């Protein structure tokens, strides 16, 4: 067994009542051992006691909290040992207890907390990073060496030459977080505690920093404790994970065991896919390729409503000359659900301040529901039209009662008393705070404050709602609650704009993504399109969520037509794959009948083709039948498939060679049995274009999702229907056996007998 560096024994902790965090024990009967050089994860719902454990290990609790001496044992019990030293414990002296132990463990233990604002203690970036090193009494050269090294680890090398000129207010939230992390890395602690330290960072930046810390662990003697909600990060980096619930440890195990344990689902943040997919590679191998090829997710695409926001040539320059907005052109229709993303400092916040009417002095044209907001009178009415929900709910609570907090905005915009009363009831019920209407908002839990902040804005019934980082610093369940409310509002007609770093949120909820960089829009489109633009994702430090990455691989190998964006879409697909597949038989007699009818139609509408080309093998029978009915002697077969000769799905359709020894005067008729995805037909058309542009396509069946709509076809089949051709009975049976498709096999048995 490795050396124990942290040993927490039977610890209980309760905050004193003067603190907002009053109540019962925050930590109850905590026993935990963390070993040397371990990467230890802590997860659990918001408010479960994760941060308290971190502060216990760092020696800040109970030493830095004022607890009445005579009640010491009522607030703290147990012992905390770190690096072999007693950090906190109680000793009985007479009838009372005294607190013993070393207390703060700096610099051996570094603690990076969630909010970078409160941890940034000095007035320049350089002094911030050197503060701890100065306290350690290191010489100047050593300090500068460590500063450079630490900055490089958090990818802030570019700031090094100007570090002493940077004021904290010039840094974005993400940069502050990186700098605070660097200031602790520079102290080279033996234990580094990271309490959700990357909440303000974009997805790629988050991964990059934790990877750097993980590498640090690999290189040297450092134990890392990471508090994190994201299972992907914990699975990738942590050796063990502790799950907390209401101040108790409910499990400590490897991340794989934790996240695959159904009994722990209620405590940890897992997507619905987590229980289904243990191993990505194994999962992908089991996908039914035919089902994947024909599946297309259903998504809301059209927004026919009126124009909600029109922005033309919007520019904004800060007084120091820095350009925050550099010619934004944008239109958002009523009812759209838009994500505004981009790296820290890309101009998202400035843009949203313009839209909410707060910022003036910009150039260009901005219209909200047709009204020009550069006019003072329009701007004054904006709060009733554009709602703004802040990232930190503490910034927007102005009253000491929950219900008056909702009333506040309504009174300001002149809503009548009886209507105010009605809306307060309605809104509180909607966000589940009706029973807390008399309480002081300052003493609500973090999730409740967040819901109250949202409620106070939605009660004003704005047509456009801008929500800043709705999921930051919240557990999955809390994030879901907020997003579900936003979805409901969107369904009722509200236009929603979310400013976010959370790519899972973007993929799952937003049908339009706007990516900003240096005050410009560099992408505006659907999330599935964005996730295919590798270069853009890299450039913008964006990382597609796991759900998207999985389906991207299927699309890249030609198995899937669309990227699946969320766990919900994956579940729908898997359900489709397993339960909803329908089968129809196309008998040889029926094919003859269809071919005959189609031939008549072709002759009457297009005349006799110069040649018929059929796609092997499915098109062979129909090709021959058409050749007979149309009296065309020049008949050619061409191979085209998604599969390689080894039967593996490939990235592109492989098209065989063809040589036509004819002169095309009229047209070539391309024949296949069914236009399913249409990709093979499309590829063959490309190949035939060297002979003529006049190519007409004929198939018996046609699925609406096909990229090629045949010029002639007999009937349409649903996208999720598997057409079994009678002459392909054996082939289809073998395919179903290979994929263990029980429903398909049952259909073959019932249709053709065993």
């Amino acid at each position, binding site marked *: 067994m490795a050396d124990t560096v942290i040993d927490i024994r039977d610890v209980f902790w309760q905050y004193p009542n003067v603190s907002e965090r009053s109540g019962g024990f925050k930590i109850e009967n905590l026993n935990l051992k963390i070993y040397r050089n371990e990467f230890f994860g802590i997860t659990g719902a918001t408010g479960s006691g994760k941060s308290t454990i971190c502060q216990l290990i760092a020696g800040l609790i109970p030493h830095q909290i004022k607890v009445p001496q005579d009640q010491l044992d009522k607030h703290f019990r147990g012992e905390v040992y770190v690096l072999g030293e007693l950090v906190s414990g109680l000793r009985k002296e007479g009838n009372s207890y005294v607190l013993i132990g070393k207390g703060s463990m700096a610099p051996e233990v570094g603690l990076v907390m969630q909010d970078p604002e409160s941890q940034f203690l000095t007035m320049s970036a350089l*002094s911030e990073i050197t503060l701890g090193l100065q*306290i350690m009494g290191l010489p*100047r050269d050593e*300090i500068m060496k460590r500063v450079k090294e630490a900055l490089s680890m958090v990818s802030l090398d570019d700031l090094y030459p100007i570090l002493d000129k940077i004021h904290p207010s010039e840094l974005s939230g993400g940069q502050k977080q990186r700098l605070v992390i660097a200031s602790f890395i520079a102290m080279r602690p033996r234990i580094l505690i990271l309490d959700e330290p990357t909440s303000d960072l974009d997805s790629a930046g988050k991964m990059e920093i934790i990877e750097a810390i993980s590498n640090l662990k690999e290189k040297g003697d450092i134990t890392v404790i990471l508090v994190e909600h994201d299972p992907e990060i914990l699975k990738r980096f942590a050796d063990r994970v502790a799950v907390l619930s209401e101040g108790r440890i409910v499990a400590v195990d490897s991340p794989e065991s934790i996240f695959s344990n159904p009994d722990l689902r209620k405590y940890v943040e897992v997507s619905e896919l987590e229980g289904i997919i243990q191993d990505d590679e194994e999962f992908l191998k089991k996908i039914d390729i035919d089902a994947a090829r024909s599946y297309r997710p259903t998504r809301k695409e059209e927004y026919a409503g009126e124009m909600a926001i029109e922005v033309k040539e919007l520019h904004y320059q800060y007084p120091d000359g820095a350009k925050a907005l550099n010619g934004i052109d944008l239109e958002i229709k009523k009812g759209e659900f838009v994500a505004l993303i981009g790296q820290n400092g890309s101009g998202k916040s400035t843009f949203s301040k313009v839209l909410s009417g707060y910022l003036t002095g910009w150039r260009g044209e901005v219209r909200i529901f047709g009204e020009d907001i550069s006019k003072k009178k329009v701007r004054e009415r904006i709060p009733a039209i554009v709602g703004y929900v802040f990232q930190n709910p503490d910034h927007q609570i102005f009253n000491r009662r929950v219900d008056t907090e909702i009333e506040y905005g309504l009174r300001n915009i002149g809503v009548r008393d009886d209507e105010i009363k009605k809306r307060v009831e309605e809104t509180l019920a909607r966000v589940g705070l009706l029973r807390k209407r008399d309480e002081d908002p300052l003493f609500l839990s973090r999730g409740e404050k967040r819901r109250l902040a949202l409620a106070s804005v939605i009660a004003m019934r704005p047509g456009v709602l801008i929500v800043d980082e709705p999921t930051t610093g919240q557990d999955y369940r809390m994030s879901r609650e907020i997003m579900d409310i936003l979805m409901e509002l969107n369904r009722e007609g509200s236009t929603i704009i979310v400013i976010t770093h959370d790519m899972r949120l973007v993929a799952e909820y937003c049908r339009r993504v706007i990516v900003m960089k240096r005050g410009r829009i560099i992408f505006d489109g659907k999330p599935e399109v964005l996730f295919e633009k590798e270069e853009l994702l890299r450039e913008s430090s964006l990382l597609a969520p796991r759900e998207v990455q999985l389906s991207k691989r299927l699309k890249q190998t030609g198995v899937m037509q669309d990227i699946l964006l969320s766990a919900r879409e994956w579940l729908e697909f898997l359900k489709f794959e397993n339960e909803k597949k329908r089968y129809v038989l196309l008998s040889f007699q029926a094919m003859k009948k269809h071919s005959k009818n189609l031939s008549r139609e072709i002759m009457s509408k297009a005349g006799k083709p110069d040649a018929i080309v059929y796609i092997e093998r499915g098109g062979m029978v129909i090709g021959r039948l058409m050749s007979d009915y149309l009296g065309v002697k020049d008949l050619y077969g061409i191979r085209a498939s998604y599969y390689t000769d080894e039967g593996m799905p490939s990235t592109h359709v492989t098209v065989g060679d063809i040589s036509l020894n004819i002169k095309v005067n009229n047209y070539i008729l391309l024949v296949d049995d069914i236009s399913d995805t249409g990709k093979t037909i499309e590829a063959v058309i490309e190949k035939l274009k060297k002979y003529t542009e006049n190519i007409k396509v004929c198939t018996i069946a046609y699925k609406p999702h096909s990229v090629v709509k045949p010029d002639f076809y007999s009937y349409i089949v649903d996208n999720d229907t598997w057409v079994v051709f009678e002459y392909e009975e054996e082939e289809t049976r073998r395919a179903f056996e290979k994929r263990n498709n029980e429903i398909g096999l049952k259909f073959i048995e019932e249709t053709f007998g065993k």
Partner: protein
Amino acid sequence: MRENREGEKRYVKTILFNARAGSIFVNLHPFTKFILFLLLSIAVIIAMTKHYPDLMFSLFVMLAVIGFLVESGTIKYIVKSYLSLIILALVVLLIWWLVFNQVGTHTILSFSIGGYVFRITRESLYIGLAKVFGYGAMAFLTLLILMTTRDVDIVNAFNQIGLPFRQTFFLSLVFRSLNIMAEDLESIRHAQFARGGRSGKKNPFSRAKEFISLSVPLTALMIKRAFEMGQALEARGFSKAGKLSSPVVSKSIGVLDYSLVMISVILLYISLTMNLTLIFGGMQWLTLL
């Protein structure tokens, strides 16, 4: 971070707004600025309070200070934020002086209000203008120093003269807390605006009520921040700090500092011993009025 050009930081954040990095006053040591402030203020006061106030001296100092404001790139903030206020204050000062200091015999203009006769004389106008330029010079000098001094420079300067770290760090924390408070206040004001709290025509009572309501989130946030900052400080081992290393970067007093102090001493000497207006015949210009 907002950058004017890629990879290059042209402005530094100061106590008030931003100043051009590398400009003369930004490069000065805070103590030099303090000495300049004292010397020039004394020189201007002496020039203003002479029997024949030295109008040209005050004007020269004011123009020199404006020149430094231009050079440091801070003049635009003055134009946007303070210029109209300063001009208004100086004009009021001049009117007040002319109305209530009935000195001199060469009347330029006279008028009567309610039986009282007011005269504007060549002498009173001269003295009034000298005072306006003098006060203007001092107002602009104060702004120049505030707009070109970084809080971190002040903290480092105190460290340099050997003030204990805890005291200087406390000063730094005060600056930082004010900075956080200003940023929080900005967000809170935006939130209040978004809830319709700052729009429309409202009476002073409603306006005052709005202002007071800002205190609820601000106080709650400051209490929370104070607690967290204390924790963050302890996480760096502040209470166990022994002998600290000196700051990595601190301004040294150089040739530029000495030169400007020397020029200020010369200006003080001039104001004590000479009257530029008399020397250059400035009084005669007034006779043209």
